[in-house]
């Protein structure tokens, strides 16, 4: 079985897990959920680190470094702003 097919399994199953997890989210959490999920999509940072870290031509390093900066903004900013939002939600009036 190829790596590709395994990847496809991971993809399909993760999509299903995502659908099941999010289905019942209350509207109050829509924004934090979106922004938290958005930060998770910054996982591409790992890919960027691998691409730049393994070295290559100048173009690869330039594009890869830009990807590192972009993804880090996404990750750091995303988690922090989600935290900021969530800490505003209060039960008591």
């Amino acid at each position, binding site marked *: 079985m190829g790596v590709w097919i395994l990847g496809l399994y991971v993809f399909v199953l993760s999509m299903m897990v995502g659908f099941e997890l999010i289905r019942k989210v209350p509207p109050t*959490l829509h924004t934090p959920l979106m922004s938290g999920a958005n*930060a998770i999509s910054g996982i591409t940072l790992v890919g960027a*680190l691998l691409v730049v*870290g393994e070295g290559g031509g100048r173009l690869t390093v330039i594009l890869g470094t830009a990807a*590192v900066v972009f993804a880090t903004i996404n990750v750091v*900013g995303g988690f922090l702003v989600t935290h900021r939002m969530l800490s505003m939600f*209060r039960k008591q009036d």
Partner: protein
Amino acid sequence: MPPFVVEFAYVVSGFLFVLGLKRLSSPVTAPQGNAMAAGAMLLAVVATLLDQQIISYGTLAAGLVAGTVIGALLARLVRMTAMPQLVAVFNGFGGGASALVAAAELLREGGANPGAAEAGAAAVGILVGTVTFSGSAVAFGKLQDLLTQRPVTFPLQKLVSGLIFLALLAGAVMMILGEVGPEMLLAMGGLAFLLGILLVIPIGGADMPVVVSLLNSYSGLAASAAGFVLGNPLLILAGALVGAAGLILTQLMCRAMNRSLANVAFGAFGGGGTVAAGDDGERVVRRTGAEEVAMLLGYASRVVIVPGYGLAVAQAQHEVKKLTGLLRSRGVEVVFAIHPVAGRMPGHMNVLLAEADVSYELLLDLDDANGAMERTDVAVVVGANDVVNPEARKPDSAIAGMPIVDVDRAANVVVIKRSLSPGFAGIDNPLFYLDRTLMFFSDAREAISDLAREVKEL
């Protein structure tokens, strides 16, 4: 560090992402969930950095530091009212990064034929990631009022978008056949950039909740595609989770407007603008002022406040909180009715009111709010229009079938609004002309703070 340790760290990280996302779906556990997801990310990044394949740390460190500083500053300094724009910006960076990763990996392999699967995944990554990037940039421009919030359309727009999409498909096929030089990748990126602009520019401000959640989904799918290019299951997993989450939100938003995604994407709502004139009989509105409304509210037993985008624009959330407190101390039951697409992103009103310290337990969703509308003395509409428009109940209306907050079933309705101008959908609102409706023409912030003052003097 041996490779299997890194791989194992990725597995733990993937597990924590799933758990974190699960916790993010309940108000009590959400902060924990966010921290867990952040921890998962940190684990994955540290494990990657310790990977023995990595040979050059200098540029990595510089990139990480730069990104951290920019991201942290944005997250700390941007005002809560600008949250939709900020989410769009972060989204765009994520999508852009995935496109760059896909391209950089192909280039690293130095033009060697990467194989059909990897090249195909790279094509998808570049396409979806770049569309996310430029689409988010346009969404940011609209939300920040740098671009008009009205739909921008020009002749043959759909044809042009369609042709660009076909060109991208052809490019993807060429990539799969082994054409993966820098020029090819640049052409793909350039066309996708244009496509992203063309897809978002015809969508109006009121449809932004759909756009923002769809782009959120795209940024996840782009990360997954990058994962396929690199053969990294963690990227595939995390990206797919986000892709699914974004799709669900998108679907929820569409349902809240009773419109299909295709209709939002290509409908250019409110652009053509057929203003339903309808019965032009006696169309008189009853004007009111702070004093009268304060009496009404102060002696009511149940008040429902319906916030809309106008509340965000006027930044009246703190005044609303103050008024709520005053009324509640008089024994008036005050709740908020939140329409799913009120504002410019999913959950916009909830975040806005949370910022002003309004308890989330006072925020009712559409069903709960409507269920209790009959025993409501006063419904106060603050800066909302289409989401309370009874026209939606008529089958021939432009917003037909859109679920609305049934404020016209409350005993009294007060609409705080700057003028009689129609809402985003460009159709008149019969609610304003009802006998039980009082129109309070004013800026939302001024109106609410006047009301608070008057209520205090009762």
